[in-house]
């Protein structure tokens, strides 16, 4: 895993290597083992390497065929061994045993469609000197980040926004439309980011930059249209097939020349991954967990149970309220976008634990909830759909009481209030966003803290409607369950789960996450399953649970879904609260202009009073705090961050 950056001069100026060095220096923590810069004609590529495969021969940027093709690559191609053998049979010659070189030869052999052959997680740029074009690509689910911007006469790209911002010509300002989206969906809609003029390549897309033209082409999308394509296979046959796929997905994700560990949350998904890794590796593996002081969110009992069952060597880190406050600013430096929950902060601490334990690679269970019906939003959708077919029923809405058993604010609600919150009408059932509207409406209420000027600038903005343009053409015909799965896996997964809670906080400590559930073979299999096999009545992840019988403890396999949560607003008001006092002072909020100082002050007073706070209050507080940190670290203190180092290499 690594950091990449590059410049393509569209005018005739030579590439400025010094600037390339500054760009990659800004994200050196992603790849502390090695670094390199390559320039040739109008292109400059830079690389910071975290050495995982072919520790000696995998230096980057790499070129072949007398510099006809050069690459800077962040990620892993897990099927590189099979591809390499295939390419050797076709006459390709390799000088290293790295997956990077395989990627170059595969591009040489198959051109831009080579990405369809890849099983992995990647963001890369290949300079094709003969065709004078830069080819960039990002993996199917957006595990690895890739940002770009255009200046007058040049195109810049990098793994992280801060690398682009080392160029003084790149403007640094909040994109209010992006902010509006984030305060609705918890993520921006690609290619938009919260930085004006800086875009991200959407997951599952490739991009060609040639002359003045930028062309983005999707090469893969999660097709949920069918959900019936398993013919006459029985449940047990499908469970068996799923097990085999997961086993293989995990096996190839153990390919590394360094030890591979695993995160263990205490839930089904990470336990399954750790169990499969243990099985494939054939030896004891190392696992890592987070624990919390609050018993309602702490899962240490299940973590210990899983670790004992699997015989792993286990380490955990206790995340206290003050730990969240202590790392919060650095976490935002890495997420490069506001967050509405503090959940990335404990994961930042967890990757530090993995790093300090000598691990560069960890497996984890991300993707299982999105693909196999694990999230409560799917249960919510099913209940609301059932109720919506007979809205006058007295009994159907009683099922709403079965939702979110771990949220006391929901559990203590009367049915009348639950019915209002989870509102349904027969007309709404046919709407494109039926599943997510209650959630988005709740999140969007945080925008009441936007300043008058922010609200005025956003008067024409409509985050939800803007999604309509991004939906697949057949989306309207999909079952509601499939629509909900699409919205989760297309937006929240790459935009928040895999970035703010994934790549960004892991790579802050040079740790690479690998996700067997996001192997595209597993995902494609899941996408074709009928919803009834993902959630049987209201039993979440039904088929997955069948598939892993005996692999993990039954107490974990059959436990009620406990989503990963961290203490939110309260963390900032335990003991001394100078952090909030300083960041959310009326003077600073007024100066920044994004939020309303009076409303923000009232929110802070509410938290300080110790009174009960709502879900919205917690999202608003974390959102305002993180936005203010973002403004402070990226805009007010631009160019002063001590972690930015300069890389000057003659490669």
């Amino acid at each position, binding site marked *: 895993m690594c950091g990449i950056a590059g410049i393509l001069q569209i005018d005739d100026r030579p590439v400025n290597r010094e600037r390339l060095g500054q760009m990659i220096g800004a994200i050196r923590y992603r790849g502390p083992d090695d670094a390199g810069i390559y320039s040739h004609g109008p292109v400059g590529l830079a690389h910071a390497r975290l050495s995982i495969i072919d520790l000696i021969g995998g230096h980057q940027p790499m070129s072949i065929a007398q510099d006809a093709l050069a690459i800077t690559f962040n990620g892993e191609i897990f099927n590189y061994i099979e591809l390499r053998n295939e390419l050797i049979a076709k006459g390709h010659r390799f000088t290293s045993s790295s997956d990077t070189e395989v990627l170059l030869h595969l591009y040489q052999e198959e051109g831009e469609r080579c990405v369809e052959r890849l099983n992995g997680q990647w963001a890369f740029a290949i300079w094709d000197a003969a065709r004078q074009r830069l080819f960039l690509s990002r993996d199917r689910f957006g595990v690895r980040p890739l940002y770009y911007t255009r200046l007058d006469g040049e195109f810049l790209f990098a793994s992280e926004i801060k690398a682009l911002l080392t160029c003084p010509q790149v403007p640094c300002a909040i994109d209010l439309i992006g902010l509006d989206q984030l305060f609705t969906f918890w993520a921006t809609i690609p290619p938009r980011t919260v930085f004006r003029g800086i875009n991200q390549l959407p997951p599952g897309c490739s991009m060609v930059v040639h002359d003045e033209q930028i062309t983005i082409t999707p090469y893969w999308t999660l097709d949920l249209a069918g959900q019936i394509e398993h013919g006459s296979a029985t449940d047990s046959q499908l469970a068996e097939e799923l097990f085999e796929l997961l086993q293989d997905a995990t096996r190839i994700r153990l390919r590394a020349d360094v030890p591979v560990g695993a995160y263990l949350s205490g839930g089904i998904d990470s336990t399954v991954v750790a169990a499969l890794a243990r099985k494939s590796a054939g030896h004891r593996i190392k696992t890592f967990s987070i624990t919390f002081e609050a018993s309602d969110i702490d899962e240490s009992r299940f973590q210990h149970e899983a670790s004992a069952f699997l015989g792993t060597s286990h380490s955990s880190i206790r995340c206290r309220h003050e730990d969240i406050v202590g790392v919060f600013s650095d976490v935002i430096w890495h997420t490069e976008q506001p967050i509405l929950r503090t959940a990335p902060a404990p994961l930042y601490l967890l990757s530090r634990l993995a790093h300090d334990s000598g691990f560069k690679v960890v497996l984890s269970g991300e993707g299982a909830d999105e693909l196999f019906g694990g999230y409560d939003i799917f249960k919510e959708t099913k209940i609301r759909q059932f109720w919506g077919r007979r809205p006058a029923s007295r009994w159907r809405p009683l099922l709403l009481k079965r939702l979110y058993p771990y*949220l006391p*604010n*929901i559990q*203590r*609600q*009367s049915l*009348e*209030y*639950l019915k*209002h*919150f989870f509102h349904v009408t027969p007309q709404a059932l046919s709407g494109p966003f039926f599943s997510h509207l209650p959630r988005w*409406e*709740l999140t969007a*209420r945080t925008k*009441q*803290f936007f300043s008058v000027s922010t609200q005025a600038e956003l008067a024409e903005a409509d985050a939800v409607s803007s999604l309509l343009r991004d939906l697949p053409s057949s989306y309207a015909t999909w079952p509601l369950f499939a629509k909900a799965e699409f919205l989760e896996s297309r937006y929240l997964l790459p935009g928040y789960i895999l970035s703010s809670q994934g790549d960004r906080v892991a790579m802050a400590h040079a740790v690479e996450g690998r996700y067997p559930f996001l192997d595209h073979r597993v995902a494609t299999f899941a996408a074709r399953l009928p919803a009834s096999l993902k959630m049987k009545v209201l039993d979440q992840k039904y088929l997955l649970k069948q598939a892993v019988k005996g692999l993990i403890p039954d107490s974990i396999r059959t436990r009620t879904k406990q989503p990963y949560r961290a203490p939110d607003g309260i963390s900032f008001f335990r003991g001394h609260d100078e952090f909030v006092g300083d960041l959310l002072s009326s003077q600073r909020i007024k100066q920044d202009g994004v939020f*309303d100082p*009076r*409303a*923000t*002050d*009232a*929110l802070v*007073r*509410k938290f300080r009073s110790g*009174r*009960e*706070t*709502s*879900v*919205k*209050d917690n999202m608003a507080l974390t959102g305002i705090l993180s936005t203010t940190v973002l403004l402070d670290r990226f805009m007010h203190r631009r160019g002063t961050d001590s972690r930015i180092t300069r890389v000057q290499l003659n490669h």
Partner: protein
Amino acid sequence: MLQTIRRFVIDNYLFGEEGQLGDEDSFMETGIIDSTGILELVRFLETTYGIKVTDEELIPDNLDSVSKIVSFILAKQSDSQQTPHDCSSRLPEETRP
């Protein structure tokens, strides 16, 4: 009472935006209080007015506007004033002060 409740709603849900709140405005329809916020209101009413809001009373008819809350509190207070009187009248003769 009306002013106290208004103040609470303005401080805790509108975060100071007084102009937005009419006494008859439905909290749910206007989005002033979301469903996860209603328990804050209940806790406030219980501690401020010494009442106990039962699960059955947790309905919009009682709590969905400033006016409805005032009516609800007054009715509860009136009930609680009557209840001890009724109870005491049923106590045996010798237990009365």
